[in-house]
């Protein structure tokens, strides 16, 4: 298999496969989440839910202004900007939109070239900062699992490779190789998102609701859980 045919495969059949897994997989976990919440809600003894609190807490997580004021100033800013670039750049990049237009004929407004350049660069920088922070700060290192490092590296791969392809003059063979890495990494991200912690991109809105319901279970529910855990049937 030559590089160019591998590239065609990765952005043809493999892309369709991974994109389908991404969209349907996310739809599936949203459905399962809502289904589970409804079931759990039916089991609560106090049917009143603190919607106001849930809303303000959710907003607080999405726009971490308050947290920035408190103990996590640098991390909050870096993380927010990283997330911003991570979402905006791939969706509104002209080259990506162009591919969509050529294959299925749909199109939407693209980022100006300069914006895309700086946003992509900032995402790479902030991503790298988070990675270094995870390794350098003792508490963060203690809390981190292997998958946390893996995800940061995997998410940064298409950004770095894409940045190289879009902005540097490199010879055609190397360009194709970098492009293959770019597309394959993107496909892998799409496939893994619905089955990993990155699913928080759609599950985040529900997390506060789940937490709130958790407080509403009848007293003694914890014992029942413990009993179940210990039961030999499992």
């Amino acid at each position, binding site marked *: 298999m030559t590089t160019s045919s591998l590239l*065609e495969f990765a952005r*043809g*059949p*493999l892309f*369709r*496969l*991974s*994109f*389908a*897994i991404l969209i*349907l*997989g996310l739809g*599936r976990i949203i*459905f*399962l989440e809502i*289904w*589970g919440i409804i*079931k759990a809600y039916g089991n609560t003894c106090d049917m009143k839910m603190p919607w106001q609190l849930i809303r303000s807490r959710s907003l607080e997580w999405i726009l971490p202004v308050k947290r920035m004021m408190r103990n996590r100033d640098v991390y909050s800013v870096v993380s927010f900007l990283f997330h911003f670039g991570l979402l905006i750049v791939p969706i509104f990049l002209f*080259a990506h939109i*162009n591919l969509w*237009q*050529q*294959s*299925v004929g749909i199109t939407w407004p693209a980022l100006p*070239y300069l914006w895309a350049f700086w946003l992509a660069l900032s995402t790479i920088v902030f991503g790298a900062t988070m990675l270094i922070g995870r390794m350098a700060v003792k508490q963060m290192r203690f809390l981190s699992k292997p998958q946390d490092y893996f995800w940061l590296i995997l998410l940064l791969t298409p950004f770095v490779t894409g940045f190289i*392809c*879009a902005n540097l003059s490199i010879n055609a063979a190397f360009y194709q190789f970098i*492009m293959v890495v770019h597309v394959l990494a993107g496909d892998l991200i799409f496939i893994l998102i*619905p089955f990993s912690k990155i699913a928080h991109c759609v599950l985040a809105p529900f997390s506060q609701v789940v937490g709130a319901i958790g407080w509403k279970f009848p007293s003694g529910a914890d014992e029942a859980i413990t009993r*179940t*855990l210990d*039961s030999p*049937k*499992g």
Partner: protein
Amino acid sequence: MNRAKNAKLVLWILAGFAAAVALNRYLFGLGVTTNLNDRTPWGFWIGFDVMAGVALAAGGFVTTAVFYIMKREEFHPLVKPAVLTAFLGYVAVVVGLLFDLGLPWNIWHMIIYWNPHSPLFEVGWCVMLYTSVLLLEFSPVPLEEYSRYAKIRNFLMKYRFVLVLLGIMLSTLHQSSLGSLFLIMPERLYPLWYTHILPIEFFISAVALGLMMVAFETLVSHWLYRRDPETVLVGKLCRVAAWVLALYFVVKSFDLGITGKLGLVFNGKWQSDLFIVEIAVSTIIPAVMFAVPRLTRKPVVQWTGSFMVVAGMVLNRIDVGGLAMYDSTASYTPSWMEIAISLGVVSAACLVFLFVLERFNIWEIKPADPESMPQTAPSFDYSSRSWLGTPDAASLARHSLAFVLSFALGMGMMSGKRLHAEGVDSIRVSPATGIDTLCINGNRDDQYVEFSHEGHIAWLRTHAISLTIDGVVHTASPSGGDSCTFCHHLNLPGEKVSNCAECHTSMYSEVDFFRHGWHASAVGANLKCDDCHATGVTRNAASAKKCTACHRGYDFAPGKGAAGPELYIPSYVDAMHKLCVSCHIADLREVSSLSQTNGGILSGKDKSNLAQCASCHRTGVPPELRADMKWQVKLPHYDNVVLPNVGVTVK
């Protein structure tokens, strides 16, 4: 091992796979998903989804007739499942039809636009009415669970006999009318299947198939939920089926005998082999097996016999629906995507059947599927310390995962080329073939212009000429410097001579030449917007750089049909005529004493007076050049009459 659980998983996978194909079918049309073509516009979907589907659902009217009309009370356990199967079967037929119809959103047009001459009109109406009747026949079962609908249920129960009678009458009509569909095409359907009593044969075989489908469905569902098989009842069905099959066989043989077609059965063509297989599997072997009453009580005989009838009769419907055509009128094998859709529709129907079976009172006792029992304790997976949820949550998660993954696999398996609905190949005009002497046969019509490349080079080497095309003067000198570009105005990079057909891609029409996407693409010319478009003005073709700013020395002219500034390429015919005639016009003038020419191109009126066309355009491609024509291999449909655009005789 939980049979029902595994079966459901497989059904979900098939349904997911079909959903991916369905998405593509609706987004990109029938051409990319099916192998249907202008020669064989009906295929597997009509044969299996519609014709076989309706026939498989015949169990509903046969069972209700036996139970309500003939008062055979012992068949009571089979009535509810049979009516449910029939209802779901008809819904599956309609859903399957939604894939096959080109404009499925117009399916309701049959209600307002009437053409009573059409058998399909009659089938459509009967299917609509009978599906409603089946819904009314079955709805007492789910309504039983909700006491507030008791009134409706009692009303339906009261008039059940009327519904059953109406259902039988409607079924008689459309089961036979499916055969009438093909009466109008004696030229297509092979004579072994074509007969004027096709409607009657269809009705009899539908009764037999209905009986055996009820038997098969009973056997399978009881096996799935590990219940005691209804051996006695199924045995009775088999014995009745033996008589119906015998009647079918007699009618069919008599018809073949009277119309003198018996000889066709044994003439060794593939159609006759197919016929023998079909009649043996669907009728002869099962009828013989069921003829012995002792055998009909054996589960092995019941399983094989009912399966053979079901498979054989389905094959019969597929044969009539498109497989058993004359060789000269058909060329079609279903694509995997067609089969995937059909399997998916059937799987979805089966899933609904199993759901209703577990949820409502179809059998006296609802089947004990451990997955559907919420009182089972929640479970943890100890190895991964993850919460698996209650059993129903786990099954929901598993089934949806199976659906998602198989959907994604289906999306991946669509070939990109098919997605874009490309043609035989990207070049629409076949390039000239040959080496020293070219055979120019762009429209593949066995008419060719023989062009001696060597001869023309030799001539150009000794003559200095100039020629004016579209106001541009082209010259060729004996020194040979400009000789190639005199004819070859546009060459590929690397001094590779480009085929005329690569740019003049359409035989008779102008084509747009400029590929904007390629110029902007990073893997193409990799140009930034600013490279061609000035900033500060509207970025369109008019304000862009001219092509000649980069492609120096090339000759781009806007076409005659081009209102805007886009670049058009003349059609292949125009280009070739311009190329040849503009040189040869002088000779032509002498010979035919034409008073006028149209800018070097002959107008149609002049052409009609020219006997000289034939001096270039010859008939019959010489065999040594014919071997070189790659397109002959690529074209999938052969005909013993006519071939490509304007016709070739192939022996």
